[in-house]
């Protein structure tokens, strides 16, 4: 018998990663070759098996697919559309409406100064395979550049549409919010076919929030593709970064959020909602680095896991030596429904400074039996009572969303999802 040479499990994606002209692509590709596919023995991927993502062939994303556009959001936004990761000017709004604000395809600006100075700087390619894969061949993505002291008038609605299965889509965004500027982004992932479960969306976004600037991101995942996402964020002095991640669908979802609070009095707020059923697996992995004194962070993740769903939450707060007067709070609450639902939580604190107030809390349980009984005794049907209590359970995360229009819209989507749990 001939001796078999070991086959690189990444062979299914490698052909799609070659020959990209993006900055640093060659170096990233080299890293892809060297980095192993994470297994359950890799601490950061202990509860999320990604090996199966490499068991199927992938095609390059189709940018010119015909799409039937969904209804617009019921409030004023600037809509930017990406179809299978490719920017579609024909489907997007007029993006040049406001001076001192650049909203455009990142690919068009790769040679420009601000992009060159920031692209790839806070997402290392030598540690995490998926970040290296993305950097080796990004599909395209959004550049949001807001000049000093400018406030973006309307929220930017980034609509990412996946049309078919079997694609490897690698969105790559860069958000640069300069000193004193303000921006709000609503990112929505939707799909137009039930076959998209075999598509892998491997995204990376780098966000820089400069001194006194503010960036709000609302992320809504409601397509059935596999999502591996990396958010790398750097917040300077008195900067404010807030992200809320809502996961309603997805075959395998992994959201890494890595925030570095690098200037005094920087603040980060991370919120999350996950409603999982079917066999959806959702892994929220957050890291907040308190690198300097006087920063604050607040984290709240809540989820309901039904049927054969699996929820994972790993939140780490790291307080560097001398990062005194740090205030960091983290909370994770889960409700399990159904005998096959599972949750794995790992809230971590790693602290090297003494004048700190840090805490985390984590709960796992079911809907309050007494509450159910109370509602039933008042003639509310069981399913209605469950829905009311589930809705109430999600309320405090939703209340943190300051954009009222979006909050209402999201609440209606969440309620619709709760009907199916």
């Amino acid at each position, binding site marked *: 018998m001939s001796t078999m040479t070991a086959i690189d499990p990444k062979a299914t994606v490698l052909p799609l990663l070659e020959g990209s002209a993006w900055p640093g692509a060659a170096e990233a590709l080299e890293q892809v070759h060297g980095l192993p596919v994470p297994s359950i023995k890799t*601490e950061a991927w202990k509860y999320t098996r990604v090996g199966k993502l490499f068991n199927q062939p992938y095609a390059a994303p189709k940018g010119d697919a015909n799409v039937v556009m969904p209804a617009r959001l019921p409030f004023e936004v600037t809509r930017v559309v990406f179809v299978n990761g490719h920017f579609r000017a024909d489907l997007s709004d007029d993006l040049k409406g406001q001076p001192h604000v650049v909203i455009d395809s990142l690919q068009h600006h790769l040679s420009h100064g601000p992009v060159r100075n920031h692209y790839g700087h806070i997402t290392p390619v030598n540690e995490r395979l998926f970040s290296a894969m993305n950097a080796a061949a990004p599909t395209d993505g959004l550049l949001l550049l807001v000049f000093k002291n400018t406030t973006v008038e309307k929220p930017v609605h980034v609509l990412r549409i996946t049309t078919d299965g079997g694609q490897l889509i690698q969105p790559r965004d860069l958000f640069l919010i300069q000193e004193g500027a303000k921006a709000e982004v609503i990112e929505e992932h939707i799909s137009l076919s039930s076959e998209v479960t075999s598509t892998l969306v491997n995204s990376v976004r780098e966000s820089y929030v400069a001194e006194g600037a503010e960036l709000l991101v609302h992320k809504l995942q409601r397509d059935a593709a596999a999502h591996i996402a990396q958010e790398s964020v750097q917040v300077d002095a008195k900067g404010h970064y807030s992200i809320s991640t809502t996961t309603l669908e997805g075959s395998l979802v992994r959201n890494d959020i890595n925030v570095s609070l690098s200037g005094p009095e920087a603040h980060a707020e991370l919120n999350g909602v996950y409603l999982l059923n079917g066999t959806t697996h959702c892994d929220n992995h957050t890291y907040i680095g308190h690198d300097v004194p006087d920063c604050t962070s607040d984290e709240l993740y809540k989820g309901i896991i039904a049927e054969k769903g699996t929820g994972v939450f790993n939140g780490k707060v790291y307080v560097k*030596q*001398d990062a*005194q007067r740090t205030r960091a709070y983290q909370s994770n609450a*889960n409700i*399990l*429904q*159904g*005998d096959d*639902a*599972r*949750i*794995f*939580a*790992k*809230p*971590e*604190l*790693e*602290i*090297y*400074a*003494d*004048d*700190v*107030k*840090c*805490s*985390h*809390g*984590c*709960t*796992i*349980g*079911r809907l309050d039996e007494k509450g159910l009984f109370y509602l039933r005794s008042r003639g509310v049907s069981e399913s209605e009572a469950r829905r009311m209590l589930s809705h109430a359970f999600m309320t405090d995360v939703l209340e943190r969303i300051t954009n009222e229009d979006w909050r209402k819209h999201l609440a209606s989507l969440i309620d619709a999802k709760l009907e199916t749990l």
Partner: protein
Amino acid sequence: MAQDTDDILREVTSKEYAYGFITAIESDKAAKGLSEDIVRFISAKKNEPEWMLEWRLEAYRIWQKMEEPHWAHVHYPKIDYQNAYYYSAPKKKPTLNSLDEADPELIATFEKLGISMEEQKRLAGVAVDIVFDSVSVKTTFQAALKEKGIIFCSFSDAVHEHPELIKKYLGSVVPRTDNYFAALNSAVFSDGSFCYIPPGVRCPMELSTYFRINEAMTGQFERTLLIADEGAYVSYLEGCTAPIRDEHQLHAAVVELVALKDAEIKYSTVQNWYPGDKDGKGGIYNFVTKRGMCLGDRSKISWTQVETGSAITWKYPSCVLKGDYSTGEFYSVAVTNNRQQADTGTKMTHIGKGTKSTIVSKGISAGFSNNSYRGLVKIGKGAKGARNFSQCDSLLLGDRCGAHTFPYIESENPTAMVEHEATTSKIGEDQIFYLNQRGIETEKAVSLIVNGYCKEVLNQLPMEFAVEAQKLLAVSLEGSVG
């Protein structure tokens, strides 16, 4: 006032280990290094039967195939397992009936520790099985226990006298394959304690062992096996102090507890191995595997520990809650100072229906030390109505130390309830100010606050031990406490 606190903290960090001394007793040593021959030598020294030797050899083979784990949040130079002695026994093994006949040097040693055997005997109903290095020197109160049918003896004696119990339970909770250090211990364990409480018997006194590493460069590999038969109850105390050494010493003990139906075991530890000097030189590596199995329905195992010593502490007293409605508890105070490192916590594995567990962990870090809580709460699919509550608090004294929390929480049953909370902070200046304002000086105020902070755990200790534990806390944080 901040200056005061700084002074106190400086004093705390410069406090030397008070219990460092070497007792010169001749000892009988095996050659350096580890091999099948050494395992055979240890077994032969103890006149062990063939099955015991085979069990050890198998463990040695398993160990050889394993790799030393490095996932804990601790750092230490590579251990050379071939550069240590694996067996050392006091040469003069006295067989004594009263303390008067004991080696006067030994008595003096215990007096220096502040807990003389005389005092121990006076304290109501404490039977002490003293392990001096590796061989049980003295067992007291044997007769009183015998009357109740309780077996409390050295592990070596149990191998000869109760082979059926050893064969049945040894390795049933911590198998040889469990981890690197458990496998090592299984191959070369020198001695330890064995205890069996027959059905329906409530052990009339607190059982206690005093462990002590004495011989330079001797790893100590204790093995403890405790079985509480149906409806039995036992409270077991374990305490450690060790003398100053320059060479790092490895301590890899294994403790196995088995609670059958309706049985209850309370296991309390006060650990004060030599922590090394203030520059991190010397000190014990305490890599211990402790696990209890709630085998029967409605059984209960409770761990209480006060950890003040060791250069490195790496241990997770755990409970496997197999029986329906069984209960596991873990109460811990871990103090680290100077360059000490501790990675400790617990694992609660819920398998049976209606199982309950409680975790209360209090970490105190000072100097340049690092103190981590690492824990696992696992609710299996069949653990219907399981319940867990965990609380892990960390207190930081000084701005060069670290406090970390790494809890793992896993649930696969929708009827289970799990709650975990953790906080990290330093002693509030407002708290100190409040006490100052009422005429309490800063030193006493810090002491009050630390004591209050640990109260929940100290309350779980038997009275005699609580006194000793408070003494140890005071010594570990001298200058700021009591």
